[in-house]
């Protein structure tokens, strides 16, 4: 077996299509996970206690089981409860649910890290509850959670590879199919590693840029 770059060039169109599906599922899945995660964290903080406890239990289950199993259950087990999903929607839903559990914990930590005194100061100058959340809590929280949120987004890039097992035509599925067809396993795996690494670096770079932009907000010792 020898490394054959021509193989990559020959299949470039389908590789690029796989790459775009990967990026798309990652973007939609991450945005969905951030939104749902935020709703979970807010409900746990501001909502009634039983709701918070129920959501806490769900988060524990999602964090306590492998993404692969969750995806299998959703795709192959879904029809048993009347949930028939095509691979792509199933993948997006799975990614969103999985990511939201982690994001909700990140946001929960963020809410708790905002010093109580900052909220008290806002109460003292007359801001109401809604204004406090919008003007103080959310902005402060978002800068506190940025590093861990970027980290989670990076993890989700790599988790998109799992979607290949339910035949979502993303990068891993396309490239490993090419690899199997031509017995070019080394090339395909090498290429895959390279692509994911590049995506992760890009995400990390954007995260660092955002952090730099926010660095002057950084909480002082108080």
């Amino acid at each position, binding site marked *: 077996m020898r490394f054959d770059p021509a193989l990559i060039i020959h299949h470039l169109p389908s590789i690029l299509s796989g790459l775009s599906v990967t990026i798309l599922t990652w973007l939609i899945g991450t945005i969905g996970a951030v939104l749902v995660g935020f709703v979970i964290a807010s409900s746990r903080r501001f909502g009634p206690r039983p709701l918070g406890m129920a959501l806490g239990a769900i988060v524990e289950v999602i964090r306590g089981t492998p993404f692969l199993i969750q995806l299998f259950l959703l795709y192959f087990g879904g029809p048993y409860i009347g949930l028939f999903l095509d691979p792509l929607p199933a993948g997006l839903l799975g990614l969103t649910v999985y990511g939201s559990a982690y994001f909700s914990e990140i946001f929960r930590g963020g809410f708790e890290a905002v*010093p109580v*005194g*900052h909220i*008290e*100061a*806002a*109460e*003292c*100058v*007359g*801001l*109401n509850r809604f*204004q406090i959340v919008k*003007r*103080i809590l959310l*902005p*402060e929280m978002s*800068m506190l959670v940025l590093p861990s949120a970027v980290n989670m987004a990076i993890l989700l890039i790599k988790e998109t590879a799992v979607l290949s097992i339910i035949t979502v035509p993303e990068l891993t599925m396309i490239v490993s199919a090419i690899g199997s067809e031509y017995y070019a396993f080394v090339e395909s795996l090498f290429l895959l590693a390279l692509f994911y690494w590049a995506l992760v670096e890009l995400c990390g770079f954007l995260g660092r840029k955002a952090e730099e932009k926010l660095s*002057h*907000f*950084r*909480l*002082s010792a*108080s």
Partner: protein
Amino acid sequence: MSHPAVTIRGLHKSFGAVEVLRGIDLDIPRAQVTCLIGPSGSGKSTLLRCMAFLEETSSGSILIDDAPLGFRTHADGSRTRLPAADIRAARRKIGMVFQQFNLWPHMTALGNVSEALKTVQKLGRREAEDRAMVQLKKVGLAERADHFPSQLSGGQQQRVAIARALALEPEIMLFDEPTSSLDPELTGEVLNVMRALADDGMTMVVVSHEIGFSASVGQKIAFLDQGQLLLTGTPTEVFGKPRHPRLDQFLETYLDRGAAMLL
């Protein structure tokens, strides 16, 4: 004497089983500086926080300008909690300055001072910032208006916090150990701002370990011990000899904080 700015009657406050304030009766005179002093754990910060409604009292009443703060007390002694809007209205007369400054780190000095003018008083951005600048000038920080809290020294942060409270034109300013988290060389600038405010005739309540400041600027001293008001009076009455033995004991621990002049 004119009507007190704050009237506190029979105030009790417990945290769980611990009773921190045990029946406080205190009048805060208008246009004067009242200093709350006492050993740590005596309840002086809690009392101040009750006046800002940051702590809900367990029983008793606080009147701000004759309007009840937080609870309405009925003839039979029972209390009803007032609606949130009423509480915000009563609080509007009060400005609070914290030990930890509590500036919002994502806003500049100007942003911190103008925030409530924009969101609460609904002023336009230009007008809110003009009014905020007036307050920043007053505390000597106009040229730092566009700095974020993390770019300011502790003393400057506390002066911004004072400007933030002043921007809403409160009738009463509460200071909760305003210099306790500052390096000694930075306390002077904050105390100077407070002195200037006192000279302007602002009603002030100050919880402070700066005994020297309390004795020289304070017009009324309230000495708390174990949740009770042990002594109240003018600095001469409270600090003059013969002194209450408990106060003597307390002052001895403060020799290095400017209390030496009193002993």
